[in-house]
């Protein structure tokens, strides 16, 4: 409660805190305020240096309540890794002030809340749809919207731009050439669309449209029991699926108040670090491919295939593994698996060094990336950058160090940081992170703790199949858990892990039923990609392609 008391004293002079509600629930500090105070409060929290990151803005719908919506802000401080959740109630026909003056990173998050719930943010210059298509009527995450209600789309929007001060919005300028790239373009990784106005080879202004892979993850989570959400999380960042499983299960476990056994923790750490490695191989491989180097892609994929082999041995799947369960892992590792991981570590180390020599020392690569479209540390924090993109700007923030979980604090590894925040540094950081991940895996694999791979609480974890078919108690527990479902207590929690792209946060609201009431994902590349038009403004077109590749945008988690 100490931090909350300090905050109370700090706010007492400037705000009417008699209306405020300070609570500490499930390990999170929560501050409920009237909606009128939100913009001023957020500005104060940032300017006084208490919370430099706005991690997430989202809505929650309570149709029975007088004021229907909650707008929830998640703040983070890089100084002491403390978090604060600010909540305000907004009625259906009311609006709330935008958080944009305080945090630029609120831009897309507020647009998403508008798209999903119809919450209006006063003062937001581009409050338009972001994920659903332009012919979509209604707001899908409201509780009265049926998850099955498809609305078809017949056209694509023409080239359009954001309303920025000093620029004419959607009106095209005759002097410049409008250019549309994507969504079906190689460099756009399948589902991104970039629209630009070009003066020769230079981008005068630029806008990016997303939502081409909006698969309604959050609505699906609300209509499925807790354990059935796990396969959906696989498909968020499909390049490193186990990390999403881990992030989601960790959140539910925190709400349940259970701690998983040491062996499950060790397996999760190994899976997470292997995923980090293969995620970076894709980022580097396709990044170099976008710059014209196909060789690196083939090299990197060779490495990736070997890791797939390990996943296959563990669970039978290659890409979307769904290996974790709430309470631990789905099954134990096969005999000798940890030794195989150790053996592969040597290969990965060798392959990484080879690739680093091939890519980072390549003259063309250096000239295409060094000093191109740099982002300053200050801007990066304002936008809500996390992960390798943030560290490339020179900010030493890694949740594995700042807010250690699963025994990361006992492991010996370094957090690589860049200096200039340009494209070259981003790849430099990724290569070094791969080496550090190998170090982590080796340390864990050499001392795998014994014991069970999951907790055995019959209200949380299904009994093993041999018990289900072997004795009446097992059969009964299985039946009860399937029928009744896993039911966490009423409450809410925000939990984050350091995924390959940055902070992967899950905000979970439970109403005590078998399905999550609301599950909001805070995807790392969503915050990063919203800065894209600003970052590439004035750059050459080819550099914009290099930038988009270096951001490692995974449409699955970007659009959800």
């Amino acid at each position: 409660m100490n931090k909350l008391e300090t905050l109370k004293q700090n706010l007492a002079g400037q705000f009417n805190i008699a209306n405020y509600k300070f609570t500490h629930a499930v390990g999170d500090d929560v501050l409920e305020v009237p909606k009128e105070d939100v913009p001023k409060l957020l500005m104060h929290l940032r300017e006084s240096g208490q919370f430099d990151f706005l991690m997430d803005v989202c809505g929650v719908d309570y149709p029975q309540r007088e004021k229907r919506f909650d707008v929830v802000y998640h703040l983070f401080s890089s100084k002491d890794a403390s978090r604060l959740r600010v909540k305000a109630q907004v009625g259906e026909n009311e609006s709330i002030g935008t958080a944009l003056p305080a945090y630029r990173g609120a831009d897309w998050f507020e647009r998403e809340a508008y798209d999903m719930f119809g919450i209006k943010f006063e003062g937001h210059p581009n409050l338009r749809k972001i994920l659903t298509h332009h012919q979509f009527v209604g707001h899908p995450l409201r509780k009265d919207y049926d998850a099955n209600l498809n609305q078809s789309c017949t056209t694509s929007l023409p080239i359009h731009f954001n309303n920025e001060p000093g620029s004419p919005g959607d009106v095209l300028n005759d002097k410049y050439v409008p250019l549309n790239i994507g969504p079906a373009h190689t460099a756009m990784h399948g589902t991104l669309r970039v629209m630009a106005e070009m003066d020769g080879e230079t981008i005068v202004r630029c806008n990016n449209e997303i939502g081409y892979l909006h698969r309604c993850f959050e609505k699906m989570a609300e209509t499925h029991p807790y354990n059935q959400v796990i396969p959906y999380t696989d498909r968020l960042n499909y390049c490193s699926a186990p990390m999403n499983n881990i992030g989601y299960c960790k959140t539910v476990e925190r709400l349940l108040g259970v701690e998983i056994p040491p062996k499950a923790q060790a397996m999760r750490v190994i899976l997470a670090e292997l995923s980090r490695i293969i995620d970076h191989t894709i980022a580097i491989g396709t990044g170099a491919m976008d710059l014209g180097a196909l060789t690196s892609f083939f090299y990197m994929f060779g490495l990736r295939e070997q890791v797939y082999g390990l996943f296959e041995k563990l669970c039978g799947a290659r890409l979307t593994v769904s290996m974790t369960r709430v309470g631990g892992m789905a099954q134990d590792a096969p005999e000798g698996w940890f030794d195989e991981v150790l053996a592969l570590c040597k290969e990965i180390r060798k392959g990484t060094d080879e690739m680093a020599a091939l890519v980072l020392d390549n003259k063309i690569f250096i000239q295409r990336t060094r000093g191109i479209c740099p982002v300053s540390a200050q801007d990066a924090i304002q936008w809500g950058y996390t992960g390798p993109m943030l560290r490339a700007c020179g900010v030493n923030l890694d949740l594995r160090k700042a807010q250690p979980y699963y025994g990361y604090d006992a492991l010996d590894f370094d957090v690589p940081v860049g200096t200039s925040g340009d494209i070259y540094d981003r790849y430099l950081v990724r290569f070094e992170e791969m080496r550090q991940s190998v170090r982590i895996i080796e340390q864990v694999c050499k001392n795998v703790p014994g014991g069970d791979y999951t907790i055995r609480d019959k209200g949380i974890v299904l009994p093993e199949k041999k018990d289900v078919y072997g004795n009446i108690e097992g059969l009964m527990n299985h039946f009860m858990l399937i029928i009744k479902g896993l039911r966490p207590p009423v409450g809410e929690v925000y939990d984050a892990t350091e995924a390959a792209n940055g902070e992967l946060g899950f905000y979970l609201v439970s109403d005590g039923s078998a399905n999550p009431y609301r599950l909001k994902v805070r995807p790392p590349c969503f915050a990063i990609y919203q800065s894209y038009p600003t970052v590439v403004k004035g750059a050459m077109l080819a550099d914009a392609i290099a930038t988009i590749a270096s951001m490692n945008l995974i449409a699955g988690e970007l659009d959800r």
Partner: protein
Amino acid sequence: MHNDQVQGSPSHQGATGTQAVDDMSRSFAFTSRLDALVAWGRKNSLWPMPYGTACCGIEFMSVMGPKYDLARFGAEVARFSPRQADLLVVAGTITEKMAPVITRIYQQMLEPKYVISMGACASSGGFYRAYHVLQGVDKVIPVDVYIPGCPPTPEAVMDGIMALQRMIATHQPRPWKDNWKSPYE
């Protein structure tokens, strides 16, 4: 092997007439129906356009990658322009927002053209029975081969491509394609 036959053939010994020409041609030529020859060429030189939108796109990269190497099936030339490709591989979820785009891409491809729907999402919407997901890409474009899986293994993708090759080789009728009309016209 061929050399022996050529040396032993009558043409080299100065024989004349149709018999000699016929014998000679047997050493290096064969006869076939023209359409069978064309089909043979088509099936062994499919140029895929990978339309990778999601997880399946990553698995399709594996299929193109060093371990599985689609080049062995004559389909290694991945083209990202629909005008240069004859096989559209829909690898990943197609959302309502994407549907008009992929229809246009399909229309831009030149004949003959084929479509493979890779994975559960492209085939039926998969486990995304949801408000923004197209329930199968065959709602907007004609599909020749469906590959099950979420995502399908590279082996399954190769199986699908071989199934398509058999379809091409045997001139299987494709009414779904012949009767196709753009849903937006």
